[in-house]
Every structure is written in C-alpha cells, then in structure tokens.
C-alpha cells in the first residue's frame, strides 16, 4: 500500500517539476519547485525517514526565500521561450543516452523493498543498527551515524557549508567606496 502512495507522490513531483521548467512566469516556476520539495518531504515520511522529512521542510522554506529573491524582478517577470531545433535535439539525444545508462544501472539494483544491507552480513548498516544504542547512547540511529560513527563527514559538511556561505557573502558584498583620492576627509569633519 505505501508503494502505491509513493508512486502517486512521485508522479505528482514529476508533474510539478515539468510545470516549473515549462511555465514562462518565474514566480510560478519557483512556487512549483516548492511544491516538488514539500512533496519530497512527504515521500520521506512514507519511506520511514522522519529526520529527512523535517530537514527537507526546513531547507525547502529557506530555498523558496532564496529563489524568490533571485526570481522577483519588477521588469523581468516572464521569460519568453525561444526554441532552437538543434538545442532541443541535442538535449533529447543526451536524455535518451542517460535513460539507456539508467536502464542498465537499474538491472543491477536491489529489488525495491529489500535493502542492500540484507545481502551482506558485515554491511556497516548492520553494525550501526546492532551497536548504535550501546556505543553512542543515541536512540535515533541516523543521528548516531551522523554525529558519532561518521562525525568526520559532518565536519566536512559544515566546512563545505561555511565555504559556500563565505563565497555567497563575498559575491554579494557591496564594494567599499574608493577613498584614495580624498584620504582623510571623513576624519577631518
């Protein structure tokens, strides 16, 4: 039963993504992609991943604010689509190639509903599930993995986030006014 619900939700997500990409109004497309993100968080709930659902909602709200900031311009509200045949052709060819590769990839995938950790007795996930509570004292194994077993990954994540924020700030920063021509005028006043 949850599989059918998940499938319906993913189909809705695809429709939302198509709308977001095809509509000519930027505001509409930002709102559509927000719908896709919130649907994704519902799918995470059905996949027994409550932590992911919560994080996805929080991140999605910030994403919407950022995208609105980028999208809302007084004079540039809608984008006319100029199609070039050759561009579309190249895109379709690439997508077909990717679809072929994907079909090959899914042949080796585990069946849906049977995680890979069942196949190998010494998979790391099994260890985490076995010893997570004893070794870390965290009842939530996902946080145990994030903050204890793989804490260095989280450190790297925070570093990446810091770099991205510093980069965004330094791109958006207003350049300081040049005062070389009148060095100490401000002080004299």
């Amino acid at each position, binding site marked *: 039963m949850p599989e059918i619900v*998940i499938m319906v939700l*993913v189909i809705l997500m*695809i429709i939302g*993504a198509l709308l*977001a*990409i095809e509509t000519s109004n930027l505001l509409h*497309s*930002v709102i559509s*992609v927000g719908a*896709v*993100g919130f649907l994704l968080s519902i799918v995470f709930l059905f*996949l*027994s*991943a*409550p*932590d992911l659902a919560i*994080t996805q909602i929080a*991140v999605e709200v*910030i*994403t919407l604010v*950022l*995208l609105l900031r*980028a999208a809302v*311009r007084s004079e540039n509200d809608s*984008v006319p689509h*100029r199609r070039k045949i050759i561009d*579309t052709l190249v*895109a379709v060819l*690439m*997508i077909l190639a*990717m*679809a072929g590769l*994907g079909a090959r990839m899914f042949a080796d995938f585990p069946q*849906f*509903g*049977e*995680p*890979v*950790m*069942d196949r190998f007795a010494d998979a790391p*996930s*099994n260890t*985490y*599930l*076995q010893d997570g509570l004893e070794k870390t004292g965290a*009842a*939530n*194994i*996902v946080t*145990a*993995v*994030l903050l204890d077993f793989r804490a260095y990954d*989280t450190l790297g*994540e925070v570093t*990446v*986030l810091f770099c*991205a924020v510093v980069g*965004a700030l330094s*791109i*958006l920063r207003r350049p300081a006014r040049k005062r070389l021509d009148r060095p100490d005028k401000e002080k004299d006043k």
Partner: protein
Amino acid sequence: MIYFLCFGLILVGLYGVLVRRNTVKIIISLLVIEYGIHLLLVLQGYRRGGVPPIVEPGTDQQTWIGQSVDPLPQALVLTSIVIGLGVLALLVSLSIRLFERYGTMDISKMRRLKG
C-alpha cells in the same frame, strides 16, 4: 517501477538544464536533479513494511533490527540536503550579480567573456 519514476524526475531536471536559458530556471532544474538523487538514495535503503531507525523503549532489539530501514543512506542524504542549501545560496548570489551586471538573466546574452 518506483526507481524508473524517480529516474524520470532526474531526467526532467536534466532536460531543464540543457534547454532553458534563464539562470533562475537553470537553478530550479539543478534543484530538481538534486531532489531526484536524494529520493533514489533513500528508496534504495527502504525495507517493505519498515520502521524508522529509532529505538523505542521496550522493543526487542533483534526483531527491530530485522524491521528497520537502512540508516546509512538517510544519514548521508541528510548531509547532502544541507550541502545542497549552501550550493543553492552560492548559485543564487551569482545569478543576482550577473543580473546586476548584464541587466538580463538570459545566459545566451551574457557574451562579454566570449572572445
């Protein structure tokens, strides 16, 4: 079947990146690709009729291990979601700067760097 739908979502995003010319549209398409990949990874760890990987008081450890979904993809996707937010902030600030400099969001009109 669910895998194919999820891969379809990634392909929709790829189409958007390749065809659209507006910077905000390209950012949105990248976001759709990201969603698709996160969903694919979490789908892989799902167990039919699985419970969240959270130990509740009074549960039998061994039967719970047999029922829980895979915690590892969830933890790594959690990392990836947050990193995606940082990357998005960087992309949006670049797009804002480009708009201020060229007065357009059409990438085919930003030709100043072309020789």
